[in-house]
């Protein structure tokens, strides 16, 4: 009897896990490699992509996947991919792609960087890119990353331009190098508009601690901020909620959060991930792939500030112009990189 109950329980457990999977199912995509109808003059470029999660995640992975589909339309490449590859097992997937004759392997997460460095030397004829990567140890590795501050710089410019209290705030999840660089970018942007502006900085220490995020921002509001940039994962939602309650403005990041609170979020400092996929493919298609670390920014479309259309219409031309001018300066490389100690 007990045995029966146990086996039923086990069945139930697996059913639940099944349903869980089914729930995560992404929009069905067509088979990746299709038999080409017409003989192409040149062999199409074969691209293999490794994702950490589902291509239907509505965020990082999905935008990478969309870039792939677009590259297929625009450049005629062939691609296939493998989802939900844990870092620990990603080396084998890369090797599989290499054995299967792929020209370019895109490891679409910076966590794959070390593994790419390990695998790439085994396949000198295969090219590797790491999205948001940080190091290139071989000629056939391109680590493609973003400035990490262009978008927050523009957010700082915007914040200073619209602030009436002349106090603004910025919140990150971590106090890591990247977190600090993002915040310093914001500070520099704000000061470039109004040298006297006061910028309050804080970090939650977690991507999920919504309560702490709310507390921190509430503290800032007490001190008089009227604009807040939050780039801290799920904490963002708590921050935006607090901002809404206090009637101050918020800037979202790293994706477009205007729809979360259309009356509060004035713009979003975005870092679309598609560009990391696209960049390597384009380089290869144009036959000028080189190893190395590529830092992309506003100019390449790796970062941007997206308006909430409602506010864009509302703000004065002066505000819009100030932001656009900053964007131009960034594109031209006229702004100095923030110094992080």
């Amino acid at each position, binding site marked *: 009897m007990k045995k029966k109950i146990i086996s039923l329980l086990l069945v139930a457990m697996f059913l639940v896990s099944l349903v869980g999977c089914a729930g995560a199912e992404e929009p069905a995509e067509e088979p990746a490699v299709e038999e080409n109808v017409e003989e192409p003059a040149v062999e199409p470029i074969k691209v293999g992509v490794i994702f950490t999660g589902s291509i239907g995640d509505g965020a990082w992975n999905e935008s990478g996947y969309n870039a792939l589909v677009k590259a297929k339309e625009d450049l005629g490449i062939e691609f*296939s991919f*493998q989802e939900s590859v844990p870092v620990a097992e990603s080396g084998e997937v890369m090797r599989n792609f290499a054995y299967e004759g792929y020209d370019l392997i895109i490891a679409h997460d910076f966590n794959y960087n070390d593994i790419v460095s390990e695998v790439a030397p085994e396949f000198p004829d295969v090219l590797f890119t790491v999205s948001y990567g940080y190091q290139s140890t071989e000629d056939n590795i391109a680590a493609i990353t973003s400035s990490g501050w262009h978008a927050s710089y523009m957010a700082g410019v915007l914040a200073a331009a619209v602030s009436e209290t002349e106090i603004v705030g910025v919140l990150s999840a971590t106090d890591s190098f990247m977190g600090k660089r993002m915040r310093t970018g914001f500070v520099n942007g704000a000061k470039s508009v109004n040298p006297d502006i006061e910028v309050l900085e804080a970090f939650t220490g977690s991507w999920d601690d919504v309560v702490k995020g709310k507390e921190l921002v509430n503290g800032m509001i007490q001190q008089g901020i009227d604009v807040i940039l939050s780039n801290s994962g799920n904490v963002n939602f708590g921050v935006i909620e607090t901002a809404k309650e206090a009637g101050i403005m918020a800037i979202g990041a790293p994706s477009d959060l205007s729809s979360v609170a259309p009356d509060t979020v004035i713009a979003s400092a975005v870092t679309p991930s598609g560009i990391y996929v696209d960049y390597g493919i384009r380089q290869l298609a144009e036959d000028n792939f080189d190893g190395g670390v590529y830092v992309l920014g506003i100019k390449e479309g790796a970062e941007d500030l997206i308006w909430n259309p409602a506010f864009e219409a509302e703000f004065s031309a002066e505000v819009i112009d100030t932001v656009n001018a900053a964007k131009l300066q960034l594109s031209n490389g006229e702004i100095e990189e923030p110094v992080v100690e």
Partner: protein
Amino acid sequence: MSSFDSSLSRRILRMRILVTGLAVVVAFLLGSALVALAGINPLTALRYLFSGALGTRHGIGETLTRFIPLFLATLSFAIAMKVHFYNVGIEGQIALGSLGALLVGVYVTGLPAPIHILLCLTASVVFGILWLSVAGFLRFRFGANELLTTVMLNYIAIYLIDILVETVLKDPNSLINQSQKIAATAKLPRIMEGTTVHLGLVFAAIVGFIVYYYVWRTPGGFELRAVGANSKAAKYAGINPAKLIIIGMIISGGLAGLGGGLNLLGYQSRWVSGTFLGYGFDGIGAAVMGQYHPLGMAFSALLFAIIRVGGGAMQRSVGVPYPLVHALQGIVIIAVIISAYFIEKRTEKMTKGGQ
């Protein structure tokens, strides 16, 4: 007399293999139907599944590499099952076993390789046991059902090791949250040129044999089985059931920990934050399918390894969505659990008699 013995047990064995095989076939048919619903030719997908896992040297290597922790997970589950301890916490014990091997592998240095490896594996066994004993303690002290505690301990274990890797164990030279690599002396040597197959495979085979021998051939195994089959009668025969349950738990935790250790020393070399291996969960299904017999479980663990590796190939080649690959495995497990129920009834019928 003996001709009857062997003919009956042979018939039962044949029935078991047949029913299990049938369940797997049915599961694959159902899986194929799902694949077809996704608009993909299931035959092509299946071809890639098997050729991906077994068609190339590299594929075989990958499959065998995955087989190692899976097989140990099945042994772990089966041994605990013998004394009716439902250890569904193997995933966590594997994680802790990995942690043990990692700590010794990274922070103990200057040892000759064989000693270093053995030390690492000892640590992984001990860590696995300790982790299971938390559930054991809760059961014996407070009567907490191990089905619940071990499941929770899985999540705690994975969370714990991630936190460690993100803080004190974090590789200072790395930008991402991962531990350092284990020292070269702690690495299990590869045993198949050009693949990831490592010496752990040999360890796993030896351990599988030892477990078989222990359970079916030694007085200790006799006690273990007696307690599992009728603990009251075992007690009346002078066996201490509580002691045997504890022994079963210790072996179970140790085997799971060892699986984690072998995988870490032979394959992963480090722990990356966010890693979820899943061998513990799959191992439960594979153990049921293998009917808790080491040989049967060797086959089922291999099948599960094939699905894992071939599943990737299916996605890369014909774009079978990842959740479907996962679902296939789930269907196999369910089919096999259902078939296990039939097998039990059938065996009962084939051997039962009057009073």
